[in-house]
């Protein structure tokens, strides 16, 4: 009940927000919210800490930029191409990493993401240090001009909502039930006949694909794909957003992304601008020490306690 109400309020806020706040900032938030929710699918629901999700985000950003700018694909197809490429990267990385547990899984994903990063630095299609600039936003179905920020905002919102719905559905699906069982007691899941590696791999590929969609969308919004998107800082930032908002909750990572994007934006113009990473670091430490379940996790526990 409270959850439904919460979603309804959030939806209304998202619909009216661009009349009060700068749409590009809101779109940045939506892209990172999608990225964090996708990441949470593997961390929160698959129980695996990937430290290389920037490779999917950044990889898709480049593919989409290239597909739209150089191949001249329509925007919708460009986005799909980016997401699909991230899914394929996820499949390859997942097949190498999925058998590992805990810290080894994190290390392999980090190593693979670093490999991808060096590839992006040297490959010709990424534009190296300059990145891919001036990617045209194009039109939606050849009719709506996405150069208009309002149109672009609602397009971004629609994609975000669809992906968010898919993630929520995945968590509450037959597949999601098996994932829960695996996270709860893996040896028991094996003894009931589940090939747990295949389930984890599917979760990883889904997570990578949707992280890619987030990166692809980001390219279209900012008309830019750059090395920043694929840097390991980005992998760390998405971990931070997810933990801050509430790992293993459906909406938490989006809230965490909102907090981080808002802070970055507020601090960037003030006297603390050089200290943004430090401030984020301090917040992270406070969060880990005092409310481990994250914003949404703590809120949920509070509501459960008081009713």
């Amino acid at each position, binding site marked *: 009940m409270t959850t439904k109400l919460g979603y309804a309020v959030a939806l209304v806020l998202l619909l009216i927000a661009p009349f009060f706040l700068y749409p590009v900032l809101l779109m940045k938030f939506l892209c990172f919210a999608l990225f964090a929710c996708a990441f949470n699918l593997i961390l929160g629901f698959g129980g695996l800490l990937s430290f290389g999700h920037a490779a999917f985000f950044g990889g898709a950003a480049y593919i989409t930029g290239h597909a739209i700018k150089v191949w001249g694909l329509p925007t919708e197809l460009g986005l799909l191409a980016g997401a699909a490429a991230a899914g394929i990267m996820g499949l390859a990385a997942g097949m190498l990493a999925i058998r590992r547990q805990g810290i080894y899984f994190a290390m392999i994903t980090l190593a693979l993401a670093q490999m991808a990063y060096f590839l992006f630095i040297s490959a010709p299609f990424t534009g190296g240090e300059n990145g891919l600039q001036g990617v045209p936003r194009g039109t939606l179905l050849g009719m709506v001009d996405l150069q208009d920020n309002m149109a672009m905002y609602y397009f971004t919102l629609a994609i975000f909502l669809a992906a968010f719905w*898919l993630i929520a*559905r*995945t968590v*509450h*699906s*037959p*597949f*999601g*039930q*098996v994932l*829960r*069982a695996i996270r*709860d*007691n893996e*040896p*028991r*899941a*094996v*003894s*009931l*006949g*589940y*090939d*747990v590696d*295949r*389930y984890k791999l*599917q979760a990883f590929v*889904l997570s990578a694909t949707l992280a890619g969609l987030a990166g692809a969308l980001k390219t279209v919004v900012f008309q830019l794909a750059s090395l920043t998107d694929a840097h390991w800082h980005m992998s760390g930032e998405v971990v931070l957003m997810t933990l801050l908002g509430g790992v293993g909750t459906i909406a938490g990572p989006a809230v965490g992304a909102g907090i981080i994007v808002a802070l970055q934006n507020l601090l960037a113009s003030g006297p603390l601008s050089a200290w943004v990473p430090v401030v984020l670091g301090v917040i992270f430490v406070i969060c880990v020490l005092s409310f481990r379940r994250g914003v949404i996790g703590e809120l949920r526990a509070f509501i459960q306690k008081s009713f």
Partner: protein
Amino acid sequence: MSEEHILVTDGLSKDFLGFTAVDNVTLKVRTGDIHALIGPNGAGKTTVFNLLTKVHQPTRGTMTYDGRDITRAKPAQIARMGMVRSFQISAVFPHMTALENVRVSLQRELGTSFHFWRSEKSLRVLDERAMELLTMVGLERYAETEVHEMAYGRKRALEIATTLAQEPKLMLLDEPTQGMGREDVQRITELIREVAKSRTVLMVEHNLGVVSALCDRITVLQRGAILTEGTYEEVSSDPRVKEAYMGRAA
């Protein structure tokens, strides 16, 4: 398909860093029997189960189940072939309800377990069967309880329901009544007798009352090796068996 022996191990051995936990075990479990594996603590009973269900690879020896060599099979594959186990230390899904625990075991047969786009409401067709199984182990009142809140004995009972949900041909039970009150032991004993009418059961059990009430054949393990085998009368009158147990107690 109707082999005389559903499970045969030949010279099965397992070494852990030079220590032989299972030593040249040749075990034959007759189809339809309730077969007990007993022996003092540390005799290697659980390790035999771990070898059968591929948690460990055997160091030497072979295993044949249902006429097929399973020495190199994969763990999940064993379960799909109909050999399903319960664990000595209760193995449940603690953050799911009792009903969900059983349902996730039933779910595999629907063939939708990879479907991430389908609603979990589609699993409700299994609820009736899941309730039946919970009722069999006396847990119908706890269907909606999250399992980490349940008492230990009830978790053990739930694990049996979850195992039964797989409709195993060969059910491996590792000390199913351990940690249960007397009434529950009674109930589980009756339940095992009932479900064993249509399947084979291999069980590790310390409660000799349960063993004598249920088991057709008994294998006694000591320090990893088979000490003797026979009916309850044969085994319980064997002086070496008494010594094996006494020797530990002294």
